[in-house]
């Protein structure tokens, strides 16, 4: 009769599989934890535990027992060894117990603590349980299994779970209708030869249903009532012996892999928090930097406006007053000459201010403005010479940003080149070419003058060399091509120009925003 029963190997394929599932689930949990900041470790653990505890009843083996076996046969009882699973020796089973009252759809929680003496090992431990109609079995707060057929006995091998020390058995039973009862028998064989028997009896305590975490409680509460005896095992409404013993595969202690331990989760949290903090601080820095840049731009605009509105107006008035003062004086007189010089000086100041204004005004930080200014400068500069200034400027450059350091260096270099051409080339025509090349800009100054041999050192090149060096500092380059008698071409190139800082959608649907003209400040007092 025992032949039909199998001794199950300790590790069966589903367990191996379940371990793998467990591992994968844990890794998934890890990943999800890293990805989703919203998920705390608790939810991850929840996912892992579900995977780690496949329901034992899925793998149950149902062994049928031959009817008519003498349950009380002492010989049989003696033969019953704890190692033999599925034995139909029921001597260790306690009576059916329940709460004082019985009603339909009733949940009753049973609680019992026991102690495994220290200094010895548990050799075998068998627990059999069933309930009319359902049960959930907990040992030390861990759910071991659940089922819902009172005609079966469910046999658990909990050898591996019982170490020396106090333990708690907790059972939640449920009665769907009419008679209700719960029955349990547990035998623990110790290495010392001692056998501990725990069975369902009136020493079990009934735990109130509204108590949470009750299955983990190690101490009973004084208010908990004892259970009520219903009938002896094999009697009462459940008179017939249980026909089947369902063997639950041996349970093993839950080994929590290191990545599921709380310290690891805390560590992860800390790392995650650290990463969050670092990113946050970086983002803040970037924001601050952007704000700083915006402030700088605003400040530049303000200074430009002040120069334009205040200084510009005042110096202009100076010029005007000088001119007016001259009108009353005979031309050629000493004072007239002095006043004329004052006016002239003031005019030059204004011209210098024009250039400074251009440099500091953030509105001018684009290629279009650069081209405009360079052309204007070339025209003005060459007006007093015999050189005809020709321009070749690529249209539609306005959308490209061209920041101050670049445009200033390039402007100085171009100015120097124009100056050299005016002074030394003897040309009649000068071509100023401004072209975009990819993200870069190329400015060429070409004259039709006498040219020179680039290999020959020349004194007047010093200024240009300085400018080339300055240009190199911002990543630009310069190429001079010339032959004696065939003019000279100086080509400046700045390779990378930042594209416009404002994204395209900032312009939609208004198109390019026009630069606002500066405004005069509230009328300055004239007295």
């Amino acid at each position: 009769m025992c032949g039909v029963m199998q001794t199950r190997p300790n590790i069966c394929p589903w367990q191996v599989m379940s371990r793998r599932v467990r591992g994968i689930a844990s890794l998934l949990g890890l990943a999800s934890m890293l990805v989703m900041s919203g998920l705390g470790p608790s939810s991850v653990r929840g996912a892992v535990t579900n995977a780690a505890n496949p329901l034992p009843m899925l793998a149950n083996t149902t062994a049928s027992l031959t009817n008519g076996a003498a349950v009380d046969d002492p010989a049989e009882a003696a033969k019953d060894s704890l190692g033999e699973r599925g034995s139909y020796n029921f001597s260790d089973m306690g009576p059916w117990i329940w709460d004082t009252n019985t009603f339909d759809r009733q949940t009753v929680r049973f609680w019992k603590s026991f102690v495994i003496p220290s200094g010895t090992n548990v050799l075998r431990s068998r627990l059999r349980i069933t309930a009319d109609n359902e049960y959930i079995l907990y040992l030390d707060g861990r759910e071991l299994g659940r089922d819902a057929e009172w005609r079966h006995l469910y046999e658990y091998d909990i050898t591996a779970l019982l170490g020396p020390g106090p333990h708690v058995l907790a059972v939640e039973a449920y009665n769907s209708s009419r008679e209700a009862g719960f029955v349990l028998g547990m035998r623990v064989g110790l290495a010392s030869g001692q056998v501990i028997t725990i069975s369902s009896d009136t020493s079990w305590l009934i735990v109130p249903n509204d108590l949470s975490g009750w299955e983990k409680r190690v101490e009973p509460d004084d208010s908990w009532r004892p259970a009520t005896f219903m009938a002896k095992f094999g009697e009462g409404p459940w008179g017939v012996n249980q026909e089947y013993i369902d063997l639950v595969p041996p349970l093993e202690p839950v080994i929590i892999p290191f990545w599921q331990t709380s310290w690891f989760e805390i560590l992860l949290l800390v790392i995650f928090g650290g990463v969050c903090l670092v990113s946050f601080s970086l983002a803040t820095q970037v924001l601050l930097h952007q704000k700083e840049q915006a402030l700088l731009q605003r400040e530049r605009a303000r200074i430009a406006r002040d120069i334009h509105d205040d200084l510009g107006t005042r110096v202009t008035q100076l010029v005007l007053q000088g001119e007016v003062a001259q009108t009353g004086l005979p031309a050629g007189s000493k004072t007239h000459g002095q006043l004329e010089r004052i006016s002239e000086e003031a005019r030059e100041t204004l011209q210098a201010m024009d250039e400074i204004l251009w440099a500091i005004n953030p509105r001018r930080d684009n290629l279009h403005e650069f081209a405009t200014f360079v052309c204007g400068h070339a025209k003005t500069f060459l007006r007093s010479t015999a050189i005809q200034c020709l321009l070749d400027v690529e249209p539609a450059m306005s959308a490209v940003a061209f920041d101050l350091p670049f445009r200033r260096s390039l402007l100085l270099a171009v100015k120097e080149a124009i100056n050299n051409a005016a002074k030394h080339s003897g040309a009649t025509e000068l071509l100023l070419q401004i072209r975009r090349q990819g993200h870069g800009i190329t400015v060429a100054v070409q004259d039709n003058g006498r040219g020179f041999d680039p290999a020959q050192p020349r004194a007047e090149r010093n200024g240009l060399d300085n400018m080339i060096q300055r240009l190199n500092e911002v990543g630009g380059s310069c190429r001079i091509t010339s032959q004696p008698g065939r003019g000279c071409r100086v080509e400046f190139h700045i390779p990378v120009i930042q594209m416009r800082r404002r994204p395209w959608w900032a312009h939609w649907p208004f198109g390019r925003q026009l630069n606002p003209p500066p405004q005069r400040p509230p009328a300055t007092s004239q007295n």
Partner: protein
Amino acid sequence: MNKTAKTTPPVKAAASAPLKIALVEDQPKVREDWSQLINSLPDLACICTCKTGEEAIRVIPEVQPDVVLMDIFLPRMSGIECVSRLKALMPQLRIIILTAMNDEELVFMALEAGADGYLLKRTKPADLRAALLDVLNGGAPMTSEIARRVVESFRLKARTRDESLHLSVREEQILLLLSKGYANKIIADRLEISVDTVCHHLKHVFEKLHVSSRTEAVVRYMASKATLSQ
């Protein structure tokens, strides 16, 4: 072309009567200096000064000056708006915008609004006189930059406006040469026309520009002012 020539006011003979000049400037001291300076120049007479744009619109049609010198920054009504309104009242009136600092954007807006020219306030008296006479004779101030902007401005409008406001082929040719830095004389040589014809074409370009963008320029100026004061 002949039609345009007819609408041009007769050029004042420098010797017969002085040029009548009106000045719109809000700062009293500057106003005084300017009128003194203008009166000190031969053949020029400052016949009227206005403190605000509103005053200018009221007074100037009555006194009928030949040229108006208009400050760009005026309280309440801006110089640009004032130009646009005056031009609507008196299309023959020549208006020159005065600015303290060189600001192409502003100048172009003024030109679009209907100004016939612009001068930096720091301009030497002799050049001022030349510029005034020049504007009166129909010469338009065309730097290469302004020429480029004019071409751009017309291209932007090309699809939306009626045919009569488009640039003619010759006008565009002249503007493109101007934008490349050629002087009127050289353009005339290249196109085998007279310098006068070049000037004539340019004047026509300006008339078209004024008609097509006067209100726009004012609206844009107001908008930019609004963004600035935020």
